[in-house]
């Protein structure tokens, strides 16, 4: 009974957060759901994602410009190894595709606590893939197709993280890594106000819902 009441409160909070999008804003809502393999939800949050970092704008600039390869040094965003890379327009730019176990692209989770800055180039403390101590198993990235209402258009990026390391994992930071010109870049980084606990044997589902409002 107590659990049902808590879930109802979360639903109310979802509505408030969605309305927090400003008119004309393009942004993300970040949905976090911890559930058992049976599907029973043990925690559910929706918060507004706050931090597109500079690499997102730099790659968007490259695509809007249709920057040819000969000018790839025109902008040199830093990849996730903190190396400046010449980037040009490419069909794979902005790709967030990642298979299970891949931690170089797509949605990434971590334990870092430092608040985001525009110059962040990676998660502060990424959680590695695996079933050992301090590790979590990364599922494959999936994508929900775009839809529109009278006031908003949106689509969804999703990834599951399964904890079988024998103890709880506490997720404090999240981000989205994308590809540009074959390199990996941090596009979004968020640090949660409080950690999400993923108990041993449970799954964390992360949805980044990119949306634009009128």
């Amino acid at each position: 009974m107590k659990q049902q009441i808590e879930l109802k409160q979360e639903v109310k909070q979802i509505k408030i957060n969605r309305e927090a999008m400003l008119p004309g804003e393009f942004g993300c809502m970040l949905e976090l759901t911890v559930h058992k393999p049976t599907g029973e939800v043990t925690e559910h949050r929706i918060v507004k994602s706050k931090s597109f970092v500079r690499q997102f704008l730099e790659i968007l600039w490259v695509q809007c410009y249709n920057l040819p390869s000969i000018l790839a040094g025109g902008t040199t965003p830093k990849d996730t190894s903190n190396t400046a890379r010449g980037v040009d327009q490419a069909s794979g730019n902005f790709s967030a595709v990642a298979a299970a176990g891949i931690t170089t692209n797509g949605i990434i989770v971590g334990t870092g606590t430092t608040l985001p800055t525009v110059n962040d180039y990676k998660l502060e403390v990424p959680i590695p893939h695996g079933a050992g101590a301090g590790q979590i198993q990364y599922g494959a990235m999936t994508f929900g197709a775009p839809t529109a209402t009278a006031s908003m258009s949106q689509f969804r990026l999703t990834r599951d993280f399964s904890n079988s390391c024998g103890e709880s994992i506490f997720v404090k930071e999240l981000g989205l890594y994308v590809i540009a010109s074959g390199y990996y870049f941090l596009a979004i980084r968020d640090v949660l106000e409080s950690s999400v606990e993923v108990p041993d044997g449970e799954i964390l589902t992360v949805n980044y819902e990119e949306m634009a409002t009128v």
Partner: protein
Amino acid sequence: MRTKLLLERFSDDDKLIERREQFSRSFTLGFMRLLYVQHSQLSHSGLAVSASNLQVCSLPGYSSLFSSQGQMFGIVVGSGTGTPAPSDTCLYTPICHGRLYRAGAPASFLNPSFETGDFTNWTNSGGTIQNGDWGLKNGTYYVQFTSENYIQQAIDLTNISTISFQLYGGDIADQLSFRVSVDGVIINERVLARNSNFPLQIVDVSAYTGTHTIRFTSHKLTGYDRTSYLDDIRTYGSQLEFGGCEITNLRFGTINAHNGEFTVSRFFTNHSGNSIAVTEAGMVAYPGLFIAHDTFGAITLTDGQLLKVSYIPQITV
């Protein structure tokens, strides 16, 4: 991320006369579709992954040779009014490139994008209504032609300077052409290359006044019957000269209250000999998707004046 819309009016000797600034209200579903396709690397409703997706940088004017340049891409302006919506696929009343002036509002074709799902208001000879995907069509339905087919409709051309339409055609190169005729006289013909996609074809009808019959014909040149697709037939009145659409000033740091931005901008020059009011703006990105739409109180350009429209995406951490 929010986007600032900057509107600046200049005299013919480049002096700033008027400056307005507002937040852009609407990235449309088109923008989200392009970003989704790039994120997922999956096609969506005929929209494919491409190195050029999201391109808004463009050459000036209009070119019938380069389907991805000129007024077909980048910032566009119009004279329509209303409240933008995420599902918008074009300006309400677009202004096209040129120097012509029309005193009144242009008449529109009835059922111009075939969204009735049939040929209501059109005379049809052999065309069929389709609702599949070829990427750039407007709305759900379009017309498929097989060689010697046509559709036609009578329209008052008095306030119309140009007609545009989307065209996709030819599964074999150079065996099919597409014709536009007025009262049976061909005024425009284009030979279609293999699987060629022409998101905006422009036909000048400024020499006509009064009501005339406009016919769109698929014409077989050689070989077997070939298919072509037609959609989104629009009319335009007064014209402005489109400058190139440029991308500049990518910068980071503490910029007022935000941390990063770049600028997309374009000049529009009025050489029509009369005043033209602009009330809406937007952006079109490769491969022809309408990605942003804004309306505002009229900015009136007298003859010789310039309008600079800038979209400035800004991120704040």
